[in-house]
């Protein structure tokens, strides 16, 4: 039920059980979650709360054990590996704690690779040029990751994540490896992106200060959502 709201993400009864030898570990124990298009949502919780598992399932990197996961109307729960690969290509952009840029390619080619995989022409014209200006990395695109600071690498990673205009930007502890100054820059950028382009963002964090940049924060513990508040 969307209650008339435009839900980009609608999760119902989501369970994920990992099997480690003979032992079963329940990472998600029945998660219900709705996120509207254009929302900036933070998911907070301690280690082992299930937030990363939720991140991976929403990003199509892992499959669900049970439940329903609708993203932009597509149910990820019953998808095959190749279908989830298509979801990652077409609907989702990732930003990771460790930046995860391809080390052998320049910043520009990292972005170009995302465009290439998505079957889109390479280029930084139009709105994306403005986005690069907003991110402040337009002049550093010819450099390889090893020549960029952590903050610059993370901003390039954000540029790569949004270049194909995904419906959902997933960020996993995007400031986890950054100092305070760069953390603030990155969080402001995410907020500006959300405000100026309407980009839906779901950010995993254990940092309350980072979570404060989002419209609302969802708290998780032991594989369940405890509360969702502004």
């Amino acid at each position, binding site marked *: 039920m969307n209650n008339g709201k435009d839900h980009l993400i609608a999760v119902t009864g989501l369970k994920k059980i990992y099997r480690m030898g003979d032992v079963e570990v329940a990472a998600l124990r029945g998660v219900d979650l709705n996120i509207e298009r254009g929302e900036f949502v933070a998911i907070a919780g301690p280690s082992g709360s299930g937030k990363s598992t939720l991140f*991976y399932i929403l*990003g199509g*990197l*892992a499959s669900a054990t049970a439940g329903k996961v609708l993203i932009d109307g597509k149910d990820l729960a019953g998808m095959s590996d*190749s279908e989830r*690969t*298509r*979801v*990652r*290509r*077409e609907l989702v952009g*990732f930003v*990771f704690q460790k930046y*995860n*840029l*391809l*080390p*052998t*390619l320049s910043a520009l*080619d990292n972005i*170009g*690779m*995302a465009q*290439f*995989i*998505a079957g889109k022409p*390479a280029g930084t014209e139009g709105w994306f040029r403005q986005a690069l200006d907003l991110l402040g990395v337009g002049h550093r695109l010819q450099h390889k990751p090893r020549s960029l600071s952590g903050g610059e690498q993370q901003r390039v990673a954000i540029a*790569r994540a949004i270049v194909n205009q995904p419906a959902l930007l997933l960020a996993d502890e995007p400031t986890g490896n950054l100092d305070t100054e760069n953390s603030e820059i990155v969080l402001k950028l995410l907020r500006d992106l959300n405000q100026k382009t309407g980009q839906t963002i779901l950010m995993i964090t254990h940092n309350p200060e980072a979570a404060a940049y989002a419209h609302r924060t969802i708290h998780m513990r032991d594989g369940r959502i405890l509360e969702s508040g502004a």
Partner: protein
Amino acid sequence: MTNKLVIENLKHRWVRTLLSAAAVGVQVTMILTLVGISFGMLDDLGRRSRGAGADILIRAPGSSIISLSTAPMPEKILDFLRTIPNVAIATATTVQPMGGTNTVTGIDLDAFSRMSGGFRYVKGGAFQKPDDILIDEYWSRQYGLKVGSVMKFWNREWNVCGIVEPGKLSRVFLPIRLAQELTGNTGKITSIFLKLQDPSQTAATIAAIKQQLTDYQVFSIDEYVSLLSVDNVQGLKWFIYVVIGVAVIVGFLVVFLSMYTAVLERTREIGILKSLGATPGFIVGILLRETVILALTGSVVGIALSFATRWAIMNLVPGSLTQMIVPNWWPIAAGISLIGSLAGALYPGWKAARQDAIEALAYE
């Protein structure tokens, strides 16, 4: 963009790239050197056989066309052959080993000279004394021998009495009687050469000879030279196949190890590509393209190295083997290395394609 990633990956680990290409190159060189020596030896033998000036060659029943030595035929056959119509000259040789793969050929100098048109002496002249030998220019150059130099074989010292132009049957000659006597082969010969009065009647003459010498191998020189191919030499073809097999295994292992290491090293990068939506086929494709570049680069290196092995054989092991450069085999050797390399990349590629994206992204 894929090619850019492939090239950058290869450049990023340039030492491994160079070593892998060099190892594939060694594989290609192994093949090209072996094939080059096989072709070179047979070609050299063919040219020198033609240089004898004979029209017909007769060898013992069951003997290989390139057997380097032994004297399995009775010399008395010569008397019979001289009675065959159209035979102008019948002369024999005995070929005996003198160490390693080298042989010395015993000839009847007078008959051989009449048949071949005679040696052209670059220096010195014909046999004069019992310990005299003739060598050709190639042998002289390879071993640095001059007229008056001493060669040692069969526990004897031999005096180089003359240096002749190359291309006539052999490279080292001595009188046939002496060769037979010293090797315990008195009355026995290795090959018989016939010069015909009318070479256009070669086929008819061969037919006449075969009526009497039914089991003997009787060839026109043209036929004999045409038989000097890898396919017709017992064991040589299989020897080449075995070396090619070894080369394929070497290439397979080199690329397997290289690509397996690359996949392990790039686990996180594979995870990144998967997070971007790359399909397993895309990831395998990157590895296969890298493999193709390694194999092709290795092939070029291998071809270049085959020139180096030829130079080394010519200059470091004098008078031993003749290696030809066989361009026809370049694409074959490259294709063989490519097949071995691609086979070596299959398992690492499969492993990369099946890599769990989450584990890959967490890989340190």
